[in-house]
Structures are given as C-alpha cells and as structure tokens.
C-alpha cells in the first residue's frame, strides 16, 4: 500500500498590546486541525511567543488582523473585547486516513 499525505491547518490567535504586530503578546489561543493536540481554555500560563513577529519568525503565516474601529459615540470609555487580534496559520502535512 502506498502511503499518502494530506495537509491540515493549525491556527494560532495572538492578542497583542497595541495594533502593531511587533508588540507584546497579551493573550493566545491555538486550534489544531491535525488532531495531534487538544488546546483548551486555561491550559498554559506562558505565551508561545513574546510578540507577533516572533510567530512569523517561527514560520506562522498571518492571515487576519483586527481592524482599528473608532469607539461608538457615547461608549468611548467602555472596555470590552481585546482589540488587537491576529490570526496565524501553519499548514502541516499529515498521513492521510486510508479510504
């Protein structure tokens, strides 16, 4: 039987200190399309990278960054979700399931 491979996506979400990609990591989440790991809420206290650029240096590809949206009138001082959200991906070859 010939072994074949397929590609799966791993996703890394970093929440940064400012809108700059080289600012400090404040929060993080991971999702693993290979099924090899099962990241979940509250599973680590140490961020995987210190800055967003460090993730690039390690081979992650940025595919989405949050927009800068002016505060809604009347709600300028309210705080809510983290503002500076960056989505990265890494494509990983995995052994294909036998059909």
């Amino acid at each position, binding site marked *: 039987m010939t072994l074949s491979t397929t590609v799966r996506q791993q996703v890394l*979400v970093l929440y940064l*200190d400012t809108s700059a990609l080289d600012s400090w990591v*404040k929060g993080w989440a991971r999702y693993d399309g290979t099924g090899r790991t099962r*990241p*979940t*809420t*509250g*599973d*680590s206290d140490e961020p995987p990278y210190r800055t967003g650029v460090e993730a690039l240096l390690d081979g992650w590809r940025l595919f989405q960054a949050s927009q800068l949206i002016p505060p809604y009138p009347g709600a300028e001082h309210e705080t809510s*979700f983290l503002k500076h959200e960056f989505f990265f991906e890494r494509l990983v070859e995995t052994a294909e399931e036998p059909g």
Partner: protein
Amino acid sequence: MSTTRQLLNSVQVARFVAHGFLRLDGIVPQEMNEEALEVLAAGLPSVPYGTPVPKAFPEGSFTRRLLDLPAVAGALESLVGPGPEIDHHALHVREPREGSAQPLHADALIDVRPDAFDVQLMYYPQEVTADMGGTLIVPGSHLRRINESDTGRYQNLLGQTRLTCPAGTVVLVHHGIWHGGRRNDSDIVRRMYKIRFNPTVPQVRLWDTADLDAPAVREELGRYFPWYEQATARLEILNRVRLWRTLTGDPHFDIEHWATRIDNRPAAQRSTA
C-alpha cells in the same frame, strides 16, 4: 460558633474593585468541609430567585453556617450589604479526565449597572491541585462589557489565575468576572458550590472605612494587570475610579487626574449655573 462578622477594610474593598474577586483561603473548618461533601452529594434545596438568606437557608443548615462564618459574613456585608437576597445557588462539578474546559465566560446577561453589582461566592470544600481543573479567573476583567460566553475564543490571558487552593477556600467574585471551569486532568471529582447574592441596599461605604485615605487604596485601584493592552488599561482604571466614586459617595475621587480632566467642562458648568 461566633457569628461576629469581620468587615473588610478599604484596602481590601479597593483590591476587590481592581481585581474583581477576593480570595479567603482555607477559612472553612475541615469538619465543615467534610460535611459539605455529604451535603452537596445529597442535593441542594430549591431556592426561588430573590429569597432572603434566612428564608433560603434556615438557622442550623449547612449553607447558613457557611455564610455565618465571621470572615464570610463580614466580606459579604462589606460588598453587598446587610440582608442580601439569594439569586440562585448550584453545585458545579468537573468530572475526572473529562477532556474539555468551559469556555471563558461571565455569568448571566451582559450587566451594565453603574451603581450596583452582585457577588458570587465560590466555595471549594476540597483541596484543588493544579491538575484538578481549578477555576480560571481573569483578574480585572469584571468591568469589561461582554455577554456570557462571547469570550470563549480567549484560551489564555497573561496573568490569569488558575486556581489552586487548600480545602475550605472561599472566593467572592464580582458578577462580571471572566472565569471558567478548567479541564480536570486528575482522577478526582472536583466540586465547587456557588451562591449568587443580590444587594437590597445601596452599596455605599458598607465596609470598615477607617483606612479610606490610606495610600494603599490608591495603589490597589491603580493596579495594571499583565493582560491589559497598553491603551485600554487606562480605561480600566478610569472605570474603577467611577465605581469607587459610587461605592464611597465621593464624586471627586481620582487616580492621577484622568477622570477630573475629562469631566472638566467650564462652559457647560457656566450655562447650568
């Protein structure tokens, strides 16, 4: 057992306003912790929303004795005042090796009351070790306006608290705190008993205010947390200033000059004079 309450001081309340929670480690006696596991296993009595404490939990009942512990009674009175009502109570269980965690969330609906807050009591009758999935709490998250589990995307935030604690620990949290039951990777069932309290009086100077002007009060209220973004951190402190003004009845309290500066509108004050 003495039921003399031990009120919080201003520094402790300021710490609650900044952190959104207050830990009372190991304050419940071991014999009550052992009793709790039996009481919780037997099932909790139904308590309708808005029931006063004496009616919800009669004298001598386990929960009433828990709430009458001087440190618990004093902390609750300092935060929600005398005569609170029970919103609801429930046993929360994290099963051994259950494989998943709760998404990060705040309880109930988005709650934007500027002049009132509910307090939730979390009681841990067992020692909680690192692999038992102790509650994840995000310090200083309680004033952010989010609705329930919309924060589920955030798996980890810098400076988060992954609770480990001795048996008999009580944590009092502001209703808005971001939290979640973590994945239990141990072989032990983890139990937590939660009670939500609604205030029935204005939450103004309910604690021992003898140290109201202590420098440590400002230090607590001006605290930054590691997960705050640089710019938003200032807004967090502004919102704490506003809450502290409400809790103390002092409309001029400030940290640095931030609230005073943006409240300064000479033209508007002149036109209403």
